[in-house]
């Protein structure tokens, strides 16, 4: 059984490293992107099972990334979970309308995030 692959999109190198290490230990494969443009190209290249997406990104914010994802046939149906330092009160609904499955405010509750990832990716938690 191949491992599920998660694309982590965040311009903060610490967040990429911390989330990457955590997801690897939890049995996922990881790929990374640092801005809006590379998010889309990496998604096309890596065909992830899920994308963890920051909203405030250089080169096109997370909303622009979600719009691109929805317009690209190879990426239709790839679930997105937003992880952002923005207030849910001002950004969660907009993210949901743009296609995000869930919204986590930074700092994230890692246990809740891991269970949301497991339940979003078909087949539940990795073996």
């Amino acid at each position: 059984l191949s491992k599920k692959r998660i694309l982590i999109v965040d311009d903060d190198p610490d967040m990429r490293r911390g989330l990457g290490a955590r997801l690897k230990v939890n049995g996922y494969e990881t790929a990374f992107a640092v801005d809006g443009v590379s998010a889309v190209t990496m998604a096309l290249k890596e065909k992830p099972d899920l994308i963890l997406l920051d909203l405030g990104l250089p080169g096109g914010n997370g909303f622009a990334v979600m719009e691109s994802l929805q317009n690209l046939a190879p990426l239709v149906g790839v679930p997105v979970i937003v992880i952002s330092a923005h207030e849910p009160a001002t950004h969660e609904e907009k993210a949901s309308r743009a296609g995000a499955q869930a919204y986590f405010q930074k700092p994230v509750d890692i246990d809740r995030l891991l269970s949301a990832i497991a339940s979003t990716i078909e087949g539940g938690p990795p073996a």
Partner: protein
Amino acid sequence: MAYEHSILFHEARHHAELLETRVRERTAELQRTYEDLEKSRREQLEMKDQFLGHVSHELRAPLAAAHLFVRNLLDGVSGPLTSEQAADMDVVLKNVDQLRGMIGDLLEATRSDSAALQIAPHEVDVTPLITDAVSFFQLRADTIELTHDVPRDLPGVYADPQRVRQILNNLIDNALKFTPPGGRVSVRARQVEPERAFVRVEVADTGRGVSQEGKQLVFERMYQDRPTDDRPRGGLGLGLFICRLLVERHGGQIWVESEPGRGSTFFFTLPVMRTNTAGAQHRDE
């Protein structure tokens, strides 16, 4: 004579018209000034909210990385920790969490737009909210005995579960903060009058109590009871203020009873959800 009267009459009318025009012009001018002021007031509030949102975002970003790495270390992502290292990391985590709470409180208590203190109420069972909060805090209660007592037949309330959790966390956290080692904190819930239409939740501690003055002011913004040396390092004084606003938004009440030296009990009420809504709708049709 008649001719003179006629001139006077015309002059008077001319002055009256002049006066009316002037009044109209000044009124319009005042209206414009008022609208300009109102516009600039709205713009200033908008700028303040934008600024607050920006500050909160920028403070949260580095905190997020710190929080994530501490959790990774504690959960053994980078290998096992000794028990001493784990205990030290717990201290870091507790402080990071406190900082996170303070940023959230600061934003909620100061912003003025529609996003401030929103609630999304629906039928909620408060029992699991209480048991979850108590189990969460039991992990950090150390030598303080933390218990809860909720009857099985407690009715559902019309509330926002996130906000109820926020209120409970705030009250329990406060109670633990002000209770000395070996003390007790208990959380109870009961259905109460008037007309058994409210659920009352209480958080009681055996701490030093709230002063007479404090009982009136403790729910005000930035008030801190007895800011003396024996006060634990204690936040911004916004927690109970936010609790009050949230409880009031739900249509409930919040208050404290206390005897200095013998502890305090904080109470809040939430309205019970109507169970016969479907029937009422039928009657209306």
